[in-house]
Each structure stands twice: as structure tokens, then as C-alpha cells.
């Protein structure tokens, strides 16, 4: 049994990659709104480096989790059978489309109001949610009774929506695009929904772990301060959504949104470490 920190690389991956991916939902909303000039679009494309970097750092962390990363290409052999292979495939497809979109946008191939851009962003947004879901599916293993819970999947969706909303708002702020009006409403709704879904699913997951016992005792014994992890996530999420609501009415919120994003990342990371700490096998 461990305390979760033995899975730090995976915690970094499941914190950053789905969060960066969900940021594209906000970017899609910004473009779909239809009032971005070409100059604003160019600035937002440059700011898209932020979620792209978060996704890639997450994948690098996952890569370093492997004892033999040079064999990583073999992971596709298990597609359809192994949940891990399915997760990696969903992630790779997302990253490929994301990079095609971003490079095309930076190269000036995508006009702000072009149907291609809007279509690509729609596909990327759907793939972002699919990726978060498949990240969660990887933990549904019958021989790990604590993780084998639908809440393992829902947690990741909640975290990605919360973090994606804050990260998306920050990208807009960096690009000097205000969150007034519909875009602000969408961002606040996404962040709030992410916080509620993340908190309810993580809290429910912890409560369910209280009923899991094996030869080592109750699963909760491995992380006695798990409710502090829950409180840290909720506190970080409240700050994050609070700043989102403030950004609906004020410009120049880059610093506040940066602090909010860092807090949300730390909060989600703490929750992920707690999740891994609650690993409990069927018996041993």
C-alpha cells in the first residue's frame, strides 16, 4: 500500500492533459460566438500555446512513468482489450487533431470565421471530453474495488471542465479578449459545473472507499487525511470559479486568472494523489 505519491507522474498526467484538452471548449466558444476579428483570432491562436503546453507536459509525464518508454509504440497492440491502450489511443487522436488545428491556425490557414476552424474546434471539443472519459475508464478494473467505480470516470470529467474553463479564460485574457456576454456565461457555467461534478464525485468516491476492506484493513486507512485533500480541491475550485465570475465583468484579469489556474491545478493534483492513495486490491 502507498500514499499516492508513488504515482506522481500519473497524477501529473491526469491533472494536466484532460485540463488542457477541455480548454478547447472555451476556445471553441470564443470562435463560435462569431465576433472575433482576424487580429483577435491571431492573438488567441498564440495564447493557445498554453493549453497545448499543458497537454504535452501531461503526456511527457505519462511517458516518464513507464519503465521502458522505448517500447511505448507497442501499447496500440491492446486497443479494444486493454483500457490503458484505449486511453492512449483516445489521447493520441486528440493530440494529433489538436496539433493539426494549432499549427494550421498559427500558419494563418484558418480564418476566424471559417467553417473549417469551427468544425475542427467542434471535433476537438468532443475529443477532449472523450479523452477525459477514457482516462477514467483506465481505472475501472474489477480487481481494484476502490477504483472500480463510475465516479473514477466522472471525477476526471469534472476536473477537466473546471480546469479547462479557467485555462480557457486565461488564454482569452492573454489574447486581450474579454469574457463579457455569452462567452463569460459559458465559461462560468463550465467552471461551476466542473467544480460541482468534481467535488460530488470525489466526495462520493471517498465515501465509497470507506466501505472497502481487504487484508490490510479499510481502504481509507491508507490516506487518513483524504478529506483534507477534498477540502483543498474544493477551496481551489471555489477560488477558480470566483475569479471566472469576476472576469465576466472586468478586463485585465490575467494575473488573477493565472493565480486561479495555478491554484486549480494544485487542487486537482492533490485530489489525484488522494485518488491514487486510495488504491486497494481485492485482498492484498
Amino acid at each position, binding site marked *: 500500500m502507498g500514499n499516492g505519491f508513488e504515482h506522481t507522474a500519473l497524477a501529473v498526467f491526469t491533472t494536466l492533459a484532460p485540463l488542457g484538452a477541455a480548454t478547447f471548449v472555451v476556445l471553441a466558444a470564443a470562435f463560435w460566438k462569431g465576433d472575433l476579428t482576424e487580429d483577435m483570432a491571431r492573438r488567441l491562436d498564440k495564447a493557445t500555446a498554453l493549453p497545448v503546453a499543458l497537454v504535452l507536459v501531461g503526456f511527457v509525464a505519462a511517458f516518464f*512513468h513507464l*519503465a521502458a518508454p522505448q517500447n511505448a509504440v507497442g501499447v496500440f497492440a491492446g486497443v479494444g482489450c486493454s483500457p490503458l491502450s484505449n486511453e492512449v489511443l483516445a489521447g493520441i487522436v486528440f493530440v494529433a487533431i489538436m496539433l493539426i488545428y494549432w499549427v494550421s491556425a498559427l500558419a494563418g490557414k484558418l480564418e476566424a470565421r471559417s467553417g473549417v476552424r469551427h468544425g475542427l474546434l467542434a471535433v476537438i471539443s468532443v475529443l477532449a471530453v472523450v479523452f477525459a472519459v477514457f482516462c477514467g475508464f483506465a481505472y475501472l478494473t474489477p*480487481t481494484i474495488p476502490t477504483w472500480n467505480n463510475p465516479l473514477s470516470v466522472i471525477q476526471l470529467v469534472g476536473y477537466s471542465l473546471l480546469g479547462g474553463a479557467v485555462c480557457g479564460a486565461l488564454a482569452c485574457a492573454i489574447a486581450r479578449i474579454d469574457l463579457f456576454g455569452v462567452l463569460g456565461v459559458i465559461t462560468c457555467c463550465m467552471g461551476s459545473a466542473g467544480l460541482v461534478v468534481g467535488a460530488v464525485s470525489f466526495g462520493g468516491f471517498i465515501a465509497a472507499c470507506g466501505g472497502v476492506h481487504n487484508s490490510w484493513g479499510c481502504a481509507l486507512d491508507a490516506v487518513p487525511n483524504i478529506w483534507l485533500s477534498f477540502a483543498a480541491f474544493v477551496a481551489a475550485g471555489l477560488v477558480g470559479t470566483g475569479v471566472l465570475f469576476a472576469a465576466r465583468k472586468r478586463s485585465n484579469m490575467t494575473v488573477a486568472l493565472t493565480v486561479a489556474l495555478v491554484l486549480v491545478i494544485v487542487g486537482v493534483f492533490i485530489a489525484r494523489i488522494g485518488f491514487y492513495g486510495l488504491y486497494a486490491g481485492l485482498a*492484498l
Partner: protein
Amino acid sequence: MTQYGFYYDATRCTGCHTCEAACRDYHGLSLKMAFRRVYEVEGGLWSQASDGTWITDSYAYYTSISCQHCDNPACTQVCPTGAMHKGENGIVSVEEKRCIGCGYCALACPYKAPRVDREVGHSVKCDGCASRMAAGELPICVEACSMRCIEFGSIDELPRGTRAAVAPLPDPSVTQPNLYINECAAAQPFGSLDCRIANAAEVD
């Protein structure tokens, strides 16, 4: 297909750990790594009778396990590369060049048989001493056991005990382990919460 497996006579085991030490020595494992582990399970209480005397129902027993080379192994089902596989003789082993060392097998196995050895860069586990089997010899743990508690062979030819249904092991119906146990009198059923593992530092 011939299915190889282990038989363990818990009525004879003294918990000497010679099987574990011989395995570690033969495979050149570090002290942090073990393909075979001996679990010490204990339970019971001392209680005072009305006449002032003390009585006890305390007990302790040992369970020596390695990989059970299950009929329905959890490790092979989650392995993303197919490196963890079940061979023609039913032995579950790691194809080292395909393993990425993700540790999914170690997490999924309810017996904690596979472990990731980052120094060698892949998962490692009991393979029934494949090189010894190829030479017609028994696994080193079987030969080392001074009490002759452990037997290995075709599952159809081994003595029949109970299919690994004692604490601290999991419900055998989950992975259908090829480990049969002659249970000792103190043995507790799988899933029992009345006993505990007494040597956690040795086996965790």
C-alpha cells in the same frame, strides 16, 4: 493444454522463508523484490474467564505464494502490449522486449505477483523457473523447502487441496488461481476481517 501450478501444504509450513530466500537468490533479486512471499496471518484473543483464568483462541499460520498462473489472469487482461501472456504450459510470464513497464499488471493482480523493476525496465514475476523447467528440474522454491510444503507440476497430477480460498488471499473465483492448498486447522476463509497480516513490512 497442460496447465502447471503449485500445491502448498499449510499443515507443514513453519514459516521459515527458505522458499522466498532461495527464489530471491536464484533469480538475483534485490531485497526490495520478491517473486515468492510468505504471509503470516494471525488472529484471536486472550480473554479472562469468571474463575480468573485466561483462555485464548489466538492462532497464526503461514501462506507462501508466488504467481498462481491463473486460468483467468487479471494481469494479462489489462496489459496494453500483450507482453504479459499465458504460455502453452499455462505459465504466465513477461515478454521482456514488449513490456513498457506501466505497472498496470502489478496494480490489477489480486495476488500482487508482478512487480515493475525499473532497473531492468520491465515487469518481473515468477515464471515457474522456466530455465529449470526446460532442463526437467523443479522450481527452486520447491527444491529449497525443507518441509516439502510446496509441489509443482501439471495441475491434474498435483495433490488436491482447496483452490486457494484462505485469508489473506482473494476469492479464488475471480482469477481461478492454479494454487491448491492443504489448509491448516487455523486457516481463515478468504475475505475474513477477523485476522490480520502480521508481517506487513516483509511482504508489502
